[in-house]
Every structure is written in C-alpha cells, then in structure tokens.
C-alpha cells in the first residue's frame, strides 16, 4: 500500500514536472506558430486518424492553427495561472491565518469572520463579473483568482499556528525576548509550511480549473491566447462532428489537474506518516 501511495506521488510529480518543462520550453518544443491561421487547412484531424498528417500531429483548429503548438503554449497559461494565483492567494491567506491564529481574541474573530464572508460569496460569478467589468487579461485573471482563493490557506494556516503557538519552542522564544514579527517569521512560519504545501497543490488545481471555466465562458484569458479552456470553448461548435477538438485540450486539463491532486494527496500521506513515526 505504501508503494502504491508513493507511486501516486511519483506519477503526480512526473505529470506536473513534465507540464512545467513543456511550459518553460514551449518556443523550442512547438515547431509551428500557435497563432498562424490558415483557413485552407481548417480542422485537420490528428495523425492517428484517417486523413491526418504528420505535419500537424494533433491536427488544426477551426482557424487552421496547429493544435499541438496551441496545446503546448496553453500549458504555459495554465501553469502561469496556477502558480501565480497560489503565490498571491497564499500570501494573503497565510498572512491572515497566521495573524488570527497567533494573536487570537478579537483579531482572530475578525479573521474568522472574513473567512466566513469570503466563503459565502459565489466564486465563479464574482470572478466573471470582475473580469467582465475590468476587462479580460492574464493579469486580471490572476489577480481576481488570487484575491478570491485565499480562504483555505487562511483556514489551515490559522489552525496550524494555533497548534504551534502552544508548543515549547515558541514559549522558549518568547522568554528569550524575541519580538513578535521575529517569532512569527522564524518560529511559526517554517513549522506550518508542510500543511500549507498540501493546500497549495489543491488551490493550484482549483485555479487552473477556474481559469479554464472563465476562459470557456469568454471572460478569462482573451483570444487569441491559447488557453486550454478557451480552446474548448472555440472548438465546441465542432464537437458533434469532430469530438477530438474538445478531447485534446480537455484531457490535457484533466491530466494536469489529476497530477497536481495526486501530488497533493501523496504529500498529505507523506506528512501524516511522517508525523506518527
């Protein structure tokens, strides 16, 4: 069973690592221009289907753009959104959670209320409204998701800090006369990093899925950028005749999010067993 669990962790790490490499080296990997349209070569099927060509391994989309190249550049967008959102929301959430958990009392009540209020706000709806009102761009999507997805970071950081605060070494730091910011940064933060790493994977997966949903609804990453969600949206009119047009970006999204979740699950199990032994 342990082996199975580690296998999950490894598979997750391989998927995420692979996507990251693809994202970084996209200009080298993509042999075609993801933006070059050629209306005479529209909706060419992938190479393994009848009528496909090795020129366009995954075929072309409704505007004749190379699907593989778009897919490769799409990995960039997903990874960028995932990582940047986690950085933004992580910074907000951890700061709130640590402050609430560390100081307790009134401050903690306020933090807890902020979390409750945030949870009651419909996520996708508000994200859509913001992007629609401010105008769609990569930065706006990242900022919007970052400002919305901090709740789980705050919850976990708050609870972990509460547990850490009562431990001996923090008390020792207090009695050694360390200042509050110093204790927070040097004693508390390093010790709550591992549960936060698990949250980070979950939030990254969620951010990638949300970006895809926003782009699918036309209020995420603006065209002609090759976001996987946008690719599905653009292809959906053709899905009844050539289903592969939605399968290719959809399965990529699935695989990436699955990989991230496997990684998170593996980390969680690793941390759990690490704590008991």
């Amino acid at each position: 069973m342990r082996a199975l669990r580690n296998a999950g962790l490894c598979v997750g790490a391989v998927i995420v690592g692979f996507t990251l490499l693809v994202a970084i080296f996209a200009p080298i990997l993509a042999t075609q221009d993801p933006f070059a349209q050629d209306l005479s070569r529209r909706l060419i099927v992938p190479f393994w289907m009848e009528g496909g060509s090795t020129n366009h391994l995954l075929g072309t989309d409704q505007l004749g753009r190379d699907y593989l190249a778009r897919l490769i550049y799409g990995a960039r967008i997903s990874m960028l959104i995932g990582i940047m959102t986690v950085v933004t929301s992580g910074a907000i959430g951890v700061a709130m959670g640590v402050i609430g958990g560390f100081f307790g009392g009134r401050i903690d009540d306020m933090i807890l209320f902020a979390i409750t209020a945030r949870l009651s706000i419909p996520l996708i709806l508000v994200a859509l409204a913001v992007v629609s009102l401010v105008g769609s761009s990569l930065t706006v999507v990242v900022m919007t998701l970052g400002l919305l997805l901090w709740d789980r970071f705050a919850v976990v950081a708050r609870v972990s800090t509460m547990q850490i605060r009562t431990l001996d070494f923090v008390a020792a730091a207090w009695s050694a006369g360390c200042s509050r910011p110093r204790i927070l940064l040097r004693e508390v933060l390093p010790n709550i990093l591992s549960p936060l790493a698990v949250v980070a994977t979950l939030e990254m997966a969620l951010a990638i899925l949300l970006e895809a949903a926003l782009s699918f609804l036309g209020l995420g990453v603006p065209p002609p950028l090759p976001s996987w969600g946008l690719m599905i949206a653009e292809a959906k009119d053709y899905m009844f005749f050539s289903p592969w047009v939605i399968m290719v970006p959809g399965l990529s999204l699935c695989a990436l999010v699955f990989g991230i979740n496997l990684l998170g699950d593996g980390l969680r199990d690793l941390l759990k067993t690490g704590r008991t032994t």
Partner: protein
Amino acid sequence: MLHLLIRRLAVAFLVCITVLTFAFALTRLSGDLAISIAGPSATAADIEVVRKAYGLDRPVVEQFFDWVGRAAVGDFGQSYFYKERVSKLIVDRLPVTMTLGLVGLGIALLVALPLGVVSALNEGRVIDRVISLVALLGQAMPSFWLGLILMVTLGLKLGWLPISGTGSWEHFVMPGIVLAFSAIPALMRLTRSGMIDAMNADYIRTARAKGLSRTSIVLKHAARNAAMPVVSIAAVQLGFMLGGSIVIETVFALHGVGFLAWESISKNDFPTVQAVVLMLAIIYTLLTLGADLLNALLDPRLRAQ
C-alpha cells in the same frame, strides 16, 4: 442552544451586510458604469442621459445607501437589459437552479455516501485506493468539459437524454450529473474519514460485544455519528453547486439564475449581477445555518447546550 443560535444568526446577518457592501463595490470596479451601460457606440450626450436616468450622478455614498435601503425590502431595482424588476427575474428563475442544485446534491449523495462507506470499511485495501483514485480523477475533470462530453455521448451518440433546455425532468439529469461530480470527492472523503473514526470508536466495540449484526453496527451505530460532518459539508456543497451552476446552466442552456447571471454580466446589467451575488450569498449562509441546526438535532450533546 439558544445562545448558539443567536450568535450564529448575528454572524449570518453581518455576513449579509458585508456581501451587500461587496456586491455594491464590485459593480463600481469598472470606474464609470454609465459608459458601460450606454455601450461602445454612445455619444457623450447619451452617456449623460444614462447617468441621470440611473441616478449615477449622485454621490457614491448616497447611491450605496439607496441601494441598501431598497435591497433590505427586496427591491433590487429595474434590470437594464431585461427591462423587468430584478426581483421578479430572480424569483422566476430560482426554481430551475434550485431543482438543478437538489438533483446534483441527490446524485452526489447517492454516489458519495456508499463509496465513502465501502472505502472506510476496506481502509487501506486495494478497493479503498481505487475509489480514492476514481474520486481524484473525477475532481480533475473541468465541469464544462464533462458537460460537453456527456452531450456528445449520452445526448448525441446514444440519444438517451436531451442535450439542452428545461422541458422535462430528463433535462436535469445530465447537468445534475455534471454538478454532482464537483461535490462527490469532498463528500466521499468526509464520509470515509467519518466512518473510519466511528468504526474505531469505543462504542462500536460495545456494539459488537452486544452481538449486534454487522448491518446494525455499520448503518445504525457508526453511520449516525459519521453523518454529522457530512450534513455540514453537504450544505456547503449545495451552496457551492448553486454558485457553480452558472457554468453548467450556460453549457446546457438551462434558464436558471446562473444563466441569468451570465447574461447580465455580459450585458453589463449590474443591478441583476448585484442581486444575484447577494442572493447566492444569502442562500449559502442560510444553508450553513440550516446544517448547524440539523446537526444540533442529530447530536444530543449539542441539543442540550
């Protein structure tokens, strides 16, 4: 119990006030609403007319209190796009979204509870791992994409279910399945961990020592205690599903509140957007409140407080 209830109600009230402010601030994000409403081809004079007509020339604070005052009595103003009362629009479309949400939750519970229990009873075995893996895979599927896949397979290829619209109960099956997918992993995990905790509890050993049947031990003694956190999370998930229905209603062209929200967002119909945000937040708050009360009924220790 009463004390708890009052506290929870107070928090719920404060949350509503906060969301009210938030919803108002949200629509002011773009800077000048009058320009958005008038549209790209409007002249400066047109914009001035719009500004006057919608009262956007007043100070923001005045606009805010005007809105809060009306919202408090259920008046969310006139929709710019639909030319109807916003409250009527929402009331007309709420049944579709509620039906969708309940169908989704029903399917999710129907799948998640048995899987969670089976997983818990086989903790650490292959079947447990397989179930977690399948849940993880389900979690990884973008809902809109799953919706499209179902439309192609169940709708077009197999012809079992209608592809879009709201004509009959069959129209709710596919969107319900898609919506359920988002809630299944969380529900299943919680059922599993709750059942594992319960099955390891001392009172289960007592129940076994009493010679009770396996069925009675699992379903009566363990499940009752595992149910409490599941009730809470089910309410939360229903709230999320209603919020997430915006994507699914758009995919399946179900004319519910989500579809309304999407249309009003794309038409810059901000009174409707504000009202839907607020309404979904209130429903979510009521759902969690209801779950707490239900838990208090389920747990005699809470009931006594």
